[in-house]
């Protein structure tokens, strides 16, 4: 069930949704958004691509295997807690600082971790479902 319209706009949709998901992720600390919602939007973007251009195209676009993405996310979330142990002996107490006038913190690392877990988790089995269909 290939639709010409869908396949021609899928790439554009995918780019918009991925950019949107990153935007939702980054603005999350002050405005509605965050890693979880961003991850869901991102996964929906990949799903669109998989529906329109096929699972293989979506897999190639993701580069990494979804399970690896998921593990990377968990790892990042874990790593973001380590500076807390080193400074005031409490895991996941987030640290803040400014570098060249830009406010930086370990929370964003944590939130990116959440984002990657959600994207990887959803895509890991969604790709499989679509792949089954293709055969």
């Amino acid at each position, binding site marked *: 069930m290939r639709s010409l319209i869908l396949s021609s706009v899928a790439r554009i949709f995918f780019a918009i949704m991925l950019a949107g998901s990153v935007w939702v992720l980054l603005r999350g600390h002050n405005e509605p*958004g*965050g890693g979880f919602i961003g991850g869901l939007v991102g996964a929906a973007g990949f799903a669109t691509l998989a529906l329109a251009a096929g699972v293989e195209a979506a897999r190639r676009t993701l580069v990494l295997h979804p399970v690896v993405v998921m593990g990377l*996310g968990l790892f990042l979330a874990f790593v973001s807690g380590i500076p807390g142990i080193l400074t005031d002996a409490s895991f996941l107490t987030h640290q803040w600082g400014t570098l060249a006038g830009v406010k930086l*913190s370990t929370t964003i690392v944590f939130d990116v971790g959440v984002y990657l877990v959600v994207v990887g988790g959803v895509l*890991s089995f969604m790709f499989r479902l679509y792949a089954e269909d293709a055969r």
Partner: protein
Amino acid sequence: MDLSTVLLVSLVGAVIAPFVAARAGVLAGPLAAALPAILFAWFFAQIDAVGTAPIVQVLPWVPSLGIDLTFRLDGFSLLFALLITGIGTLVTLYAASYMSAKPPFARAQFLLYILLFMTAMLATVTADNLVALFVFWEMTSLLSFLLVGFQSEDAKARKAALQSLLVTAGGGLALLAGIILIGVEAGTFSLAAITANPAPILESPLLPAIVVCVLIGAFTKSAQFPFHFWLPNAMKAPTPASAYLHSATMVKLGVYLLARLDPVFAGAPWVGATLVAFGGVTMLIAALQALRAVELKAVLAFSTVASLGTLVMLIGLDGPVSSVAVVGFILAHALYKATLFFCAGIVIHATHETKLRSLGGLAALLPVTAGATLLASFSMAGLPPFIGFISKEYLFEAKLESSLDTIAVIIGVLVNAVMVAIAGVLALKPFFGRAKKPIHVSHGEQPGMIIGPILLAVTGVAFGLVPSLVSYALITPAAIAIHGAPFEVSFKLWHGFTPMLALSGLVVALGAVLAWFWDPIHLALRRRRVFDEVFSDRGYEVVLERTLALARWSTNRLQNGDLRVYGAVVAASVTGLLAYGLMSGEGPLLPNVGAEPLRPYLVVVCALIVAGCVVAAVVPSLVTAIVAVGLSGYGLALVFLLNGGPDLALTQFSVETLFVVIVTAVLLKLPTVARSSRTPGERWVDATVATCFAACVLVATLWIKAKPFNTQLTEYFAVTSVPEGFGRNVVNVILVDFRALDTFGEIAVVAFAALGAWALLRSGSAIRRTGKGA
């Protein structure tokens, strides 16, 4: 070094030493034994310090729950620590030799378990905090499981390992309950503090519950009636492990705990009477079974159970002498029983013969083993001048002095006479008796295996001849530690002509008669099959089978593979619990919430949601149903949005979208029109469950609405979000900062759930592909 460092050294050494030793060839034994030997030396050097005051070290662990990692070394702990490391040294040496024919990895594995067990034991007997003690206690159960099942290719060994784990770790759970109750009532988990001030526990209405829980824990560990069956079965373990865990150290942990809590339970005389009763029954059963047992190690196992029963009975007796008797008997028993196990191991290793009646005439072939066995069994029989004699004198003195003297003395005389007989048969029959058929010895006595029994047997004589070696250094501090108050201790060989001496004489005379007629008695008792029925692990089997049957039944009922049944079960359970909660709450069932102005747009949205639900429930087309469910979901997201929850709404929108996308992918494989697999009757049941569920949720929501909303948390987060979390989106700040650990747990759950689904999808497709023959 302080105590925690010593334990850490023990742990690290236990992990490293076996693998170093595995590559060291002949030196394996001495190398691995260096660790326990060094620890023994350290504990030995503490004797003077502990004699004046206990060594205490406090490390905070879970301060918010009042759990410290306090280590406390007093006289009683020191006695255990010396036995654990001392016998541990010899066991390690022995095991390296005993296992020398095995592949290197199996050898290293065995030594690893033995040394890890030693570490766990040391931690258990030096832990002052009861919760920490419990953790180490369970570690010993776990290592015992691994060691009993070490010959894992043997189905019987696996079964025995599982049995020992289920009994001891199950009893450990009861112990945990008891410990928590003690902590709640006493306000502390510190053993020292609890025994110093037992009043809160003795006056507590929960005292019977505490006692029952603690006794179950102690009785399972120390193989007391009605849990006595697991210890003889655990003899499937390699002999070095049997000598170490199931005789000298681990099985005495139950006794250790009871002795520790004796100052508390002394305030409630019925506890002591209970201990005497259970100890006595255990002694009698074990003595009878020891006479009936066929295998060499089984005889030793039953005599160990009888000794543990004796210790439990002694703890139940009142009076300070019982403390001396407990300490003396623990020391004497560890020395002679470990020797006997070592010697039995040598005999079995050399002859590959495990039955007592098949052995004979080994004195010429294994002369040193014969000598060590003889010395140890004299001590076991309680003959002078062995330490066993002194400990038996105290045993009878404690019984005579207590308020339960008659029954305790009668059981004591009977069971000790059997022990004398067993000791005689064990020492004489295999070595000096006549064998029924010629015995073939595959090898002589190996130095690594023979050094342990010699040292222990000689120590037993030395302590008996010169009791002052141990009396001031070990016995006195240990007895005072469990009695709870200082008193005069005299641990001597010769006490003059006393009633105790007369009882000892009576016991030896009776035992000699029993030993003389052992063959006919043994055969006559063996023929009585009824004892197998009564004293075996039949009860355990029944409980295990019933539990498994229940699990099978409930699994078949609740998880039969039909998703509708799962859903119905969950919905019905929630409904039941909610309904119970609502019914038992105070106030009217339908509280008066007060009317709110009707908002027309909300009414429209709600109508959409309801329409979606109704359509999803009635249409036969799956695609329509999915779209209808999606409609309800989007409606719900709108409700969130209209009520000031943009984050929630955004999430809901994303989830609904993805839901439709994912389910569509599934639907592509399903027929578009589902054949209804539910009968009209079943559909009525479903409808009823759904309606009840909805009604309960409605009422519950009204109740929540009727309560004044607690704004404390909302205000806290509103105020602290920007200064402490540096973010204006309170929801996100809570997720990534205030409750980041929860979020971390949640994403881990998401990841594992996804991983599970991913793996399931793969196996499904793999099966299908092989099914197609592709």
